[in-house]
């Protein structure tokens, strides 16, 4: 009997070593080729001796013109190469907004307000309670002040105050952390999907901080929870065109005007999940920032599935029968997210995966196409390409789905789950809270690669790949500073309310 488990153990260990050996062989193939060649060359040179080497050199009969032409050619090729190489885009630092304790929403308070406001609709109240129990949120998530009133007072003034509170606090913190002066900001991008006043939020920022009159400012609205990475992409493109510049990105979602006041069940769901949050990010293409920057942007891939009707309608803002505006989430949201992710992975895979995985994927693809269509498709192991994963904390289902699809361990999705627990779904800024979690845990080392995946209405799936530029010390302040020691927490499947 003790013999039976042993062969399994030894065979799994053997398999592990075989896999490791294969990966080393394929990933460092060129080295494996070059080393023997260099060794042979060195042995040859040593064998030949200095006089023979000189004889060989003279026999080549170089004259001045040939040498000069060759040198110019080499210099010309190098110059073209360095000029056409895209500029390195650095993420210097970022700051996440931490709401005041007065904005906290315990489960009991949320359910009590829900019962008091929807007193004629007990079924809707029950529905909200079931969602909240299974949501993966904790007792410390925050809603803006206007939503704490019975009934909520979502006036435009209240929305503006929320925007000012979250954006200005995050930006003040960013300016303090980086020592940047407001007049030195060259590019400003603000993204907030559901609140778009006139003048825009970016104009509000320019007014508050007295930014320069020739600033390149952009305000993105309506682009959903993946707008954060769209802003990063836009900043990257602008930084390619403008040398020696920096860009500030503000990602937020203003909850006040979008709290659904009706009782249609599918539209009550966002009320239970969306919470207050914001992030301000400083990016730069200046060479002088390469020492203090935290990350370098390696890749950014955007995938839009809007051409498909089902994807387009799956997150849809509309009026209910009583005229209340809310966001309708369709039941196939998870399936559509899975499809969008597959499309995104197909593009990003070849850019980030090591050669060993790409070869295996290619072989399995050939196998499926030519030999046997029923062969299981090979899912490349993304854990070899990245050390850290930041999955948009859209909801527990999204994180579960991605963990299953990408075969990630609990520790890989820990940042996403804990951000959902502590801050709720803060929309486009959640990726930055997750990154801050990883840094606060002291896990971010120089050379680590981070994959940020965001989903958004449309339906979009955007990914960004960052490479850590310097080992990051645990930050003394930041949104996690007072509670990181309590994390990770165990989040039960269903919290009893």
């Amino acid at each position: 009997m003790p013999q039976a488990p042993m062969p399994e153990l030894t065979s799994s260990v053997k398999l592990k070593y075989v896999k490791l050996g294969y990966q080393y062989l394929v990933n460092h193939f060129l080295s494996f080729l070059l080393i023997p060649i260099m060794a042979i060359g060195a042995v040859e040179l040593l064998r030949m001796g200095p006089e023979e080497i000189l004889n060989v050199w003279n026999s080549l009969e170089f004259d001045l013109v040939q040498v000069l032409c060759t040198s110019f050619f080499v210099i010309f090729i190098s110059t073209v190469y360095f000029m056409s190489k895209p500029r390195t885009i650095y993420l210097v630092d970022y700051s996440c907004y931490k709401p005041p304790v007065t904005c906290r929403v315990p489960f009991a308070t949320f359910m009590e307000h829900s019962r008091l406001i929807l007193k004629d609709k007990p079924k809707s109240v029950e529905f909200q309670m079931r969602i909240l129990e299974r949501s993966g949120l904790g007792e410390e998530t925050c809603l803006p002040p206007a939503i704490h009133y019975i009934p909520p007072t979502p006036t435009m003034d209240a929305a503006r105050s929320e925007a000012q509170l979250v954006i200005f606090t995050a930006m003040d913190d960013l300016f303090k952390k980086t020592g940047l002066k407001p007049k030195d900001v060259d590019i400003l991008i603000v993204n907030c999907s559901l609140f778009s006043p006139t003048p825009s939020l970016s104009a509000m920022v320019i007014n508050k901080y007295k930014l320069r009159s020739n600033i390149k400012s952009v305000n993105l609205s309506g682009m959903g929870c993946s707008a954060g990475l769209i802003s990063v992409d836009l900043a990257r493109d602008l930084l390619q065109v403008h040398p020696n510049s920096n860009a500030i990105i503000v990602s937020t979602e203003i909850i006040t005007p979008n709290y659904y006041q009706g009782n249609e069940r599918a539209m009550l769901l966002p009320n239970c999940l969306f919470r207050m949050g914001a992030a301000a990010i400083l990016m730069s293409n200046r060479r002088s920032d390469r020492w203090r920057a935290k990350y370098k942007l390696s890749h950014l891939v955007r995938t839009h599935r809007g051409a498909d009707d089902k994807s387009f309608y799956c997150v849809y803002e509309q009026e209910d029968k009583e005229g209340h505006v809310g966001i309708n989430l369709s039941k196939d949201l998870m399936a559509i997210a899975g499809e969008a992710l597959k499309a995104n992975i197909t593009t990003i895979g070849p850019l980030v995966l090591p050669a060993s995985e790409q070869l295996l994927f290619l072989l399995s693809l050939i196998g499926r196409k030519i030999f046997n269509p029923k062969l299981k498709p090979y899912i490349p192991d993304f854990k070899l390409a990245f050390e850290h994963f930041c999955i948009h904390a859209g909801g527990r289902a999204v994180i579960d789905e991605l963990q299953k699809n990408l075969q990630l361990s609990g520790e890989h999705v820990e940042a996403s789950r804990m951000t959902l627990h502590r801050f709720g779904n803060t929309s486009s800024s959640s990726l930055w809270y997750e990154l801050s979690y990883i840094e606060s845990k002291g896990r971010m080392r120089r050379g680590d690669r981070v994959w940020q995946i965001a989903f958004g209405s449309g339906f979009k799936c955007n990914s960004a790949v960052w490479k850590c530029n310097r080992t990051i010390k645990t930050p003394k302040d930041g949104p996690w500073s007072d509670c990181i020691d309590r994390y990770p927490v165990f989040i039960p499947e269903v919290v009893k309310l």
Partner: protein
Amino acid sequence: MGIVRENRVEVKSMLTAVSSKPSRSARVHPFTTLDNAMSRHTLHVIVYYPRSPFGSFDLDSVRISLSELLSMYPPVVGRVAKTPDGILEVKRNDAGLRTLKAKVCVGIDEWLRSADGHDESDLTAWEDMPEDPSTWAPFRLQINEFEGGGVAIGLSCPHRQADATTLTVLLKSWTEAQRRRCIVHPPSFSPLPSILTDDTDAVKPNSAPISKPISTKTATATFRFSSSAFKKYIEEEGIFPKASPFDVFAALFWTRVALVKRKSHDRVCLCVDFRRLLPNPLPYGFFGNALNFSSLEMTNVADQGIGHVARLINDHVTNLTVEKIRSDLNRVGEQGLVYGGDLTIVNMEHMIVEGDPMMYDAVFEDGVRPVHVSYRIGNVGGEGVIMVMPSPEKGFGRVVSVTLPEEEMSKLLVDQEILRFEPKIILSGVK
């Protein structure tokens, strides 16, 4: 009388103030027999400040210190629940303190001059407990801003859950948290010491004894007596030297009210806080009810000299032993309403700690002390209540608040013996 009372307080908004940290504990707080005896009454504390510490309200630092304080008081943010046996208890579910904001259309001085007890009740928020108390907030805070500056902070709760000392300590701790001082009296949720609860039965399910409904309209007035008035009276009447201001003022009002009631009203109920009277004193932060209600009798009290009555009261209070307190605990609430079943005199001398009245030390901003603190009991019985409270000026002065049926009050307001002391009369509804 035909004067239609206009409502000068307008409630603008309502929200729920939450604690800053989740309670993380499934502990429940049961009610003692004393708590259950108080269940007919409600308790309201109103603190008047000449300058409001509130600004925009949503983002005030005062709100943040309130949230931090509420983390120390889980029963205040919890909810009442019924066990399967029908017994009420408080669950620590963090639901929060209901907070209302209101505006008063007159200035604070005008209010103190012309408002009466009914007007003052507009400054506090109250709703009776429904059949299903799961979404009912027992503790309610109302912030009333006066025209031209000034604020009245009204805190209400069922008397079953807290007594006046508990609410006063809570408000004072809030101001200490706001000024980043150390909290002098942190809350204590230990049960009453066993020496007091040994012979009581297990908690009976709540069955309020039947008592006569209050049919008469009541009126309230507050009399402010200065320190010098007390000293003058002591000298003139030759009262025994060990008399405390409570003894003297309680005696004064007992005799004058007895005269006004025109009965030979011999019995009063004396309410004394027993936190510091036990051999192992309870801390001021003890959360809940720690009140002793005892009866005191004297024949033809209206004809007695104040000195004589004061001595009787003094002896009674000094002789409150643990055994007496325990036997009074067993009998409390037998006659129905605790306050007002007989004329009730409330003693608040214990709130003066080292010469400083606790409630007037609840200061949000340096130099802005409360100008007045009112305590109101809801559902008071027909015989009335006399509360002898500390004065904002330290020393021997006292503030006496009287609740009586309307007719008796109008006679008391012109009583010469009381007016001899030259009290300043406020909150009596004089238009």
